[in-house]
């Protein structure tokens, strides 16, 4: 009863604001239906990945499974969480780049168990409880416009980045972009993991705040603003997006910071309310076997899971699935973190 009331309230508010779809209160960005050649069943997917990026995978899956109609809906990771956690929205598969939110969904009992030959072949660190399955490994990188760094050495570590920004306030003022952790689930994940990994995170935030940093919801916007010259650099951008977007554009460069590179996994879960968990399972099998379709990794820019230990001395710092991810989702912890972050970035 209470849930229904809240839901109708949400729907009402969003309708008043002229936002959202008719059926759900959460914010839908894009939606596209893919009809199978001889469809008998349907699979609805809620995802944080843009249609432009993900379409080749959907089409390849549908070629292999022509009996399945696919309804692909995209939204931000926080909205995706809200849709499943609060509104019990009807989807068969949830794909998100926010590993922490996916883990919380599974931990709090919103995910179904699934196991198959394909998922069992995944390395242990790429799945959790047979409910959360990782299928990509994507680094967080910095994207710079080479023109803005003319005459300066390109920073290789966060420490160097802080120094460069401090020494050239006139050049970088208003031209540094990063995620708004209040609205972007992925941005929050990257920021919290950064705060765990390095002491320089808070100083960097402070410096970016002093330079009047521009805040974004998504990687795409940041990259195009760097390309247009509005930004000199974008910090903590998804490497996979960056690589596919700067292709063929001069003057843009991806800079992995050498002190460490956070690596995120894109994960999939089957929510408890799924109508067609079998088809969702087949889609998961297809996703975790992305390594067998190098042409798809090529066209989407999504690197598949590679089951091999990272080389010694590597700067790659993969984010581990597990209950540790719940810590930064704690309401108090989040409140404190966001408060500190906001007071640093908005000066």
């Amino acid at each position, binding site marked *: 009863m209470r849930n229904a009331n809240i839901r109708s309230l949400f729907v009402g508010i969003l309708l008043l604001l002229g936002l959202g779809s008719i059926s759900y209160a959460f914010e839908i960005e894009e939606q596209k239906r893919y009809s199978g050649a001889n469809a008998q069943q349907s699979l609805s997917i809620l995802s944080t990945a843009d249609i432009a990026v993900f379409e080749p995978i959907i089409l390849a899956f549908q070629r292999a499974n022509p009996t399945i109609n696919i309804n692909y809906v995209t939204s931000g990771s926080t909205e995706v969480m809200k849709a499943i956690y609060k509104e019990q929205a009807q989807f068969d598969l949830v794909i998100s780049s926010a590993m922490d939110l996916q883990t919380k969904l599974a931990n709090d*009992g919103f995910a179904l168990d699934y196991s198959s030959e394909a998922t069992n072949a995944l390395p242990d660190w790429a799945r959790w*409880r047979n409910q959360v399955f990782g299928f990509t490994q994507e680094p967080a990188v910095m994207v710079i416009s080479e023109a803005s760094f003319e005459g300066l050495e390109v920073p290789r570590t966060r420490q160097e980045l802080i120094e460069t920004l401090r020494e050239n306030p006139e050049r970088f003022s208003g031209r540094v972009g990063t995620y708004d952790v209040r609205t972007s689930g992925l941005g929050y994940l990257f920021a919290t993991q950064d705060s765990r990994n390095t002491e320089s995170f808070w100083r960097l935030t402070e410096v970016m705040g002093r330079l009047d940093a521009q805040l974004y919801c998504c990687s795409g916007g940041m990259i195009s603003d760097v390309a247009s010259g509005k930004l000199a650099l974008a910090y903590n951008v998804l490497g996979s997006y960056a690589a596919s977007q700067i292709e063929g554009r001069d003057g843009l460069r991806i800079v992995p910071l050498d002190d460490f590179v956070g690596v995120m996994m894109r994960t999939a879960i089957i929510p408890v309310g799924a109508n067609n968990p079998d088809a969702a399972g087949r889609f998961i099998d297809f996703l975790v076997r992305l390594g067998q379709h190098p042409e798809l990794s090529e066209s989407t820019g999504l690197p598949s899971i590679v089951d091999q230990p990272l080389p010694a001395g590597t700067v790659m710092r993969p984010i581990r699935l*597990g*209950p540790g991810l719940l*810590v930064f989702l704690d309401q108090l912890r989040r409140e404190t973190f966001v408060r500190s972050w906001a007071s640093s970035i908005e000066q």
Partner: protein
Amino acid sequence: MIRFLVTSSIRRRLVFQLSIMAALLSIVFFVAVRSVAEQAAADTQDNILAASATSIADALYSERGQVRVELPYSALSMLGTISEDRVFYRIVADGETVTGYDDLAVPKADQGQRAALFVTEQYRGEEVRVVSIARAVSNGVRAADVRIVIAQTRRGLAQISSQITTNAMAVAIGFFLMATALSLLAAQSAVAPVKKLAESVTRRGPKDLRPVISKTPGELVPLVDALNNFMMRLRASLTRSEEFIAEAAHRVRTPLATVRTQAEVVHRQMEKPENRKALREMIRAVDESSRSAGQLLDHAMVTFRTDQLEQDEINLATLADETCDRLQPTAELKDIEIVRTFSKEPATIFGDRILMQNAVRNILDNAIKYSPAESVITVRVENSSDQAVLSVIDQGRGFGDADLGKLTSRFSRGSNVDDIVGSGLGLTIADEVMQAHGGQLHIEPNKEGVGACVMLIFDRSL
């Protein structure tokens, strides 16, 4: 069951009992290992939960009169190190939720209890292990009673438990099989001396009453002693009765000889034919009695001497010749002619001379006794490379269709001899002598007409 235990073999009993013991021990082992290991696994989970709760307690602080906490990353990540279990937590200050899952119940604790409290309960459809610790956090005015509750599902524990059960089961079964195999071996070796003893006693000849001297384990010594004791008594008793018979025969024979001499003297002096006839009957009866007594003596002697057989070199032809000479007078009484056919080369055997004389005399005596008057008895000695044979062939009534094997047993006589007095010991004596010498007594019908052929056959190969 008890009946089965009493009558079944010692080996089977041992194996059965040892197997049951092994099975019991295996079960005890299985239960012990499983409960210890499961306790250890459960304790591990409790310890990690307690460590997690303590690390959260250390991160409690007070801000503007409010209890707050900065959840340490390790507090929850440590719970994910062993298993992939769901984790829930709740921090309550003075009954108000500070953060965490609102609906997670706070276990009731006694006032002032500071130690970690563990309970197992249901939460969100799964069994969870819950730890609760209490802390007092001062908010400037007074100390707030803060409870930290952490719950973790027990899927990992169940997995560990089933793995332990499988392993413990496998080890217990292996242990049982090994113990059973070893108990088979143990039982085998335990009964081996009994088997050995039984074999050594079974292997003995029918007359072998020597004590058992083979080495036996302590438990069997009383049995062996008892057996030896028994055999000694048996031997003494046999010896005594043989001695008694010999003594009795001897005592009877001597006066009989006197009676016979006296009877013959009287016979010569008798005039009346009916008196003479009666006396002749008497003499004949005395003769038979004396002969039977002689045979009893012979038999006793054979029994004695076979125990310690002498190995003389004997020429069969010479022996046969001497025996024929001795019995010539008896044969002549019935007008029986004894034909001696001896091989040219000497038929030499090794054996006890006195026993051999006895055997040959008894056979020839039998032949004379059962032959009709004015018949021929042939005594033949043949010698070949592998056998020496002494045969006595008569023209008597033969042995009819009697069982030849049975004729040689003591006091057994043919079915066609009712009119002739006899002891039934003659062939027995001959047979026993032959057995003691490793030869054999062979009886067959006379091939050249009526009568029987009794042969003493010595195999040289033996």
